[in-house]
């Protein structure tokens, strides 16, 4: 854990962290709605639908990590799956989007399930 002194030597700009977080949450909410469309068309019900959502959201986050975060963050000496170069906490990066996009997912899932199947 870096001390206050280290933060002052290498300050973190809150605006940039905000921008990163916002970009991630935008991506999550948009992809979540698209996964909802997919799940509805496939006719997934109850557990398999939620499982579909969680698997694909985590897959999206992993892809985001490999393409946008990993190239520069690995080069700067951080370990694999360490996002502290661009995001405040690990939890925010890996789990924040799962709950942010759930409402949109359920909306489109219900809509397309209702239109296609039921």
């Amino acid at each position, binding site marked *: 854990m870096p001390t206050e*002194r280290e933060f*002052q*030597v290498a300050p973190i700009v809150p605006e940039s962290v905000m921008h990163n977080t*916002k970009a991630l*949450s*935008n991506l999550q*909410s*948009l992809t*979540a*709605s698209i996964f909802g469309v997919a*799940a*509805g068309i496939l006719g*997934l*019900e*109850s*557990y398999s*639908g*939620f499982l579909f959502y969680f698997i694909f959201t985590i897959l999206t986050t992993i892809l985001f990590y490999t393409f946008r975060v990993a190239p520069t963050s690995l080069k700067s000496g951080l370990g694999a799956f360490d996002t502290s170069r661009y995001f405040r906490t690990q939890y925010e990066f890996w789990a924040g989007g799962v709950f942010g*996009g759930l*409402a*949109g*997912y*359920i*909306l*489109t*899932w*219900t*809509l397309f*399930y*209702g*239109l296609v*199947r*039921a």
Partner: protein
Amino acid sequence: MAQLPPQTIQRDPQLFYWILFPITVVMILTGILRHYATVLMASPPKKVEQPALKEQRSLMHGVAVRSNFHVLTAPSFKARREFLTTAFESGAYLKDPERRGQPPANPMTDPGAMDGMMGMMKNNMAMMVPNTLIMSWINTFFSGFVILKLPFPITIKFKSMLQAGVATKEMDPRWMSSISWYFLCYFGLQFVFNFLLGSDNDGAADAGNGPQAPNMFGPGVDADKQFQAEAENLAVIKHYSVLDDVEQRLLEGIKTR
């Protein structure tokens, strides 16, 4: 336990065009309207009298010096601290120096306080009025229709909420009426507004009121006490600079490359 066959209900495909589609479109358009109403109704920052502005800015100056002392050299920080502490303690920046030590005025009688409350009222109205209107619109025109089936099972307790206006005892609670589609839209349309309006929009109803300005200079706060506290905060800082030992850090950085 015997497995019950899933209920099937023959629904008119026209339900989609006359109920589902209009509700969704109205919800989206209301979100857009709400966003632009909030943008248009945002009152421009009120002009502040010169002494009041001086009071605010000098206090912020103090805070800035306190939180960024590490980029100043020791003598220049000491000079700033000396100057600000004396000014703060003598009350040189106060809005009305003769009212020092008196209790603050009642916030309800201060005309400046009313503006903040009006802004909050306007925001709340922009949330409340469309929601009430749409709810009553749906209840008048679309109550009693079963339009969609949820893809996941839920308990019987949701039945009264989801099937409001559909008085059928035996129906599976997964079937939802038009009012529950309204609730789904209410919570789930954030991604549509992200598409249409950009990410920091006011379209979604549950997005909160956005970042609130810090109420540091609000009515009812004793500026003199704030100044005294700030002077104390400045006085106890133990100064160091980020440039201390910078040559060692540089050499270490070079060595590890």
